[in-house]
Every structure is written in C-alpha cells, then in structure tokens.
C-alpha cells in the first residue's frame, strides 16, 4: 500500500498544481478533448442515425461500417493517423472521432427501432407530419438508447485519449507515459488514478442522464413492484449496442 501512498502523495503534491503540465490543466485538456470529440462525432452520427431509424433504410450498411470500425484496434488507428498527419492533436481528434461514431450511430437508430411501430403508425394516421413524428415521438422515445450510445462513446474516448498522449503532448495520459519512461511509478499510478476517477465520474453522469431521459410514461408501469425494473432501459438491448469495443 506504500505504492498507493506515494501515488496519492503525488496527486496531492502542490508542485503538480503549478507550471506547465499541472494537473488541473491536464484534466481540463482531457475533458475538453473528450467533449469536443463527442460533439463532432455526434454532429456526424446523430443525423445519419436518425435518418436510418426514421426511414428504416441503410441499416445494413450502417451495421457493416460500424462493425468494421469497431474491429480496428484503437492504438493502431491512432498511430497510423499520427504518421499521416504528424505529431500533435490532429491525429487524436481524427482517430477518436472515427471511433466515437459507431456507438453513437447505433444508439441513434436502435433507439428509433425499439419504438413500438404501432405508436408511430398511429401518430402518422392521426395527422402528424414526418417532422412532428421525428420531434414529438421518435426522438423523445429513442433518447435513452441514444444516450446509451453516447455513454459508451464517451468511455471509449476518455480511454483512448489517454493513449493519445503517445502521439501528442496532452491530457492525463502524459503522466502515464512520462512515468513509464522515467520509471516514476508514483506519477504513473497517480495519473492512472486520475484517469480512472474521471472515467467513473463520466460513467456516473451518463448513467444518471440515461435514467432521467426515460420518458415518464415509459418508466412507469401499473404495479409498483414492476416500477424499479422498467425504470431502467432494457439491459439486453443496451449491452448489445453499447458494449463491444473500447
């Protein structure tokens, strides 16, 4: 446990809170990078996912592309892109955006697909326009699975952003790599603990959002006993979509 003691001491060391490469700066870099990557990936994946889910067309292609992208090892993609466009933040942004797209895309269309067809058909039959069906029925009902997709994308980005310090001087991963090089285990472990805490915090936040966005009527059911169960999104569905690669 002395090793952990040293790691904690490293985290708390005031010297690590000033100057270049201070902990708060690194944490912000890591978070900012994760956030920006998610935004860009969402901007690409969500419209496509909604279009696929709404029309039911192009699903086969999306599954194939996502499946293919997921099989690619993240470190390989990262180093390859870094060789192409050089050392720096460009490569991680490109590589991680590509990696974040499949889970978000899958969450977006699977969310729509999980909706009872009858409800959508009825909405159309009583005179909702396609835009109204999208905005008032499909998006609110599909949101929990979309958030699930974002959640696994976020986890993957946080994890791979740590690796990205291999090709760029940024984020918490720097502590791990420089600790490895100088055999400074306290720094390495301290940095690792920070990454783990960050990842778990994100996981917790997303888990909470995912619960909140389950529409009331879907979450409630007749028997109070059932309530706790149906309040969560279907586990089977979620694990198939959101897990798979990191």
């Amino acid at each position, binding site marked *: 446990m002395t*090793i*952990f003691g040293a*790691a904690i001491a490293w985290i708390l060391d005031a010297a690590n809170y000033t100057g270049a490469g201070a902990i708060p700066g690194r944490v912000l870099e890591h978070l900012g990078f994760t956030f920006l990557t998610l935004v860009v990936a969402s901007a690409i994946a969500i419209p496509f996912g909604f279009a696929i889910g709404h029309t039911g067309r192009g699903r086969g292609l999306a*599954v194939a592309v996502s*499946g293919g992208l*997921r*099989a*690619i*090892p*993240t*470190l*390989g*993609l*990262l*180093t*390859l892109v*870094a*060789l*192409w466009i050089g050392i720096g933040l460009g490569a991680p942004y490109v590589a991680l955006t590509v990696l974040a797209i499949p889970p978000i895309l899958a969450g977006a269309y*699977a969310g729509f697909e999980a909706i009872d067809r009858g409800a959508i058909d009825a909405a159309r039959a009583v005179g909702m326009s396609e835009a109204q069906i999208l905005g008032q029925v499909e998006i609110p009902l599909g949101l929990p699975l979309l958030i699930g997709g974002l959640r696994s994308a976020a*986890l993957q980005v*946080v*994890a*791979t952003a*740590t*690796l990205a310090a*291999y*090709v760029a001087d940024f984020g918490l*991963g720097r502590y*791990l*790599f420089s600790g*490895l090089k100088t055999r400074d*285990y306290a720094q*390495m*472990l301290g*940095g*690792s*603990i920070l*990454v*783990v805490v960050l*990842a*778990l915090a*994100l*996981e917790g936040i997303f*888990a909470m959002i995912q619960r909140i966005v389950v529409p009331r009527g879907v979450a409630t059911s007749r028997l109070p006993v059932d309530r706790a169960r149906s309040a969560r999104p279907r*586990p*089977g569905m979620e*694990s*198939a*979509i959101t*897990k*798979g*690669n*990191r």
Partner: protein
Amino acid sequence: MNWAWTNLDLIWDRTIDHLILSVPPIILSFVIALPLGWLANRYRLSRGVILTASGLLYAIPSFPMFIVLPALVGTTLRSPLNLVIALTIYGVALMVRVVADGLASVDVDVQRSAVAVGFSTWTNFWQVELPLAGPVLLAGLRVVAVSTVSLATVGAVIGAQSLGSLFTDGFQRGIQAEIIAGIVATVLLALLLDGALVAAGRIALPWTRLRKTSKVETAT
C-alpha cells in the same frame, strides 16, 4: 506491402504473443462469468451488486488498468500475466451481464416444467438453463473475443509484446506498412477466433443450426 513480406517472421512471433495474451482471458472470463451471472440472475440484491460492479470495472480505461493492477495484485508491469488478468477483468465484466440476461431469457414455462419433472437446481442449470441460454452466451462470448483481441494491443504501450508492438514500433520508426500490417493481423486474428467460436457453437448447440441467426448475434 514489401515490409510485411520481409518481416513475416516478426509478424508471426507477435501473433503468437498475441494469442498467448488473448486466448486465456476469453476462456477465463466465460468460466468466471458463469457462476457470477447465475448469481446475478438469481437474487435481486446480488444482481444489483454484481452488475453495478461489472459496469464500473468495464468503465476503467485499459492503459491505467495495466498500471494499477501491479500495485493491487503484485504482478510485474510488463508480464503477460498482468495483461491476462486485466483482459480477464474486462471479459468478465462484459460476460456477466450477458450470462444474467441469457439465463433470464430462458422461457419460464420451460424452467417450471423442468422443475416439475424433477430436475434439481443443479441439473436444471446444466441441462436446461445453460443450453437454452447457449445462443445468447455464444453471442456474448464472440463480443468478448473480438474486444479482447483488440484490447490486447494496448499492452504494447507499457512494453508487453503483442501485435500492438507493431504499432508502437512502426510509429517510432515511421514505417506505415508495419502499422497497417499490425491492424490487418489483429483484425484477422479477431475474425479467426470469432469463427472458431461459431464453429464451437455449432458443435455444442446443434439445435440452433435449425434456426436463423439469433437477434443478439446480428446486433453485435
């Protein structure tokens, strides 16, 4: 792609290293996840605890995991054992949920009738629940296999040899072909193990051949 032809030996060696790192975790995670998944499916309390814990473990990024483990269990940072343990943790975290869901998906009527004709809990598990949950478990195991093979490459950044070493080496020496060869080899290896699991499934679950691919399979 000249690089690949002249370095087939190297690729082969790294492939073997990679297999040694990734096959044991796949098998171990199945073996460990079975009882845990059964427990998760059986009692409400254990379900909450086990599934939450596995969710959190799964959320831990792999690189820090490789570094934290030696401090926790005393493995050597660069040893294959360290990676095998880490990869097994991820495999179990993924698989436990699949086992729990798979067992839950077994038709209640089938279970009741099995109990009614006199199966004990133990024989019921082995002879009724497990085979019927088989297709779901297989689908889950395939996901574990593919993700373990992909994840094992990360070990290269702490200096553990695997196909991932082709990435770090190729990056440092500026050889694109080496990285591409590594990616191709990793994907092929994943496909190979996936195919092996499908074949094993056909032997172990002969009745599923009559049906079309299960839903979970296509979703992954």
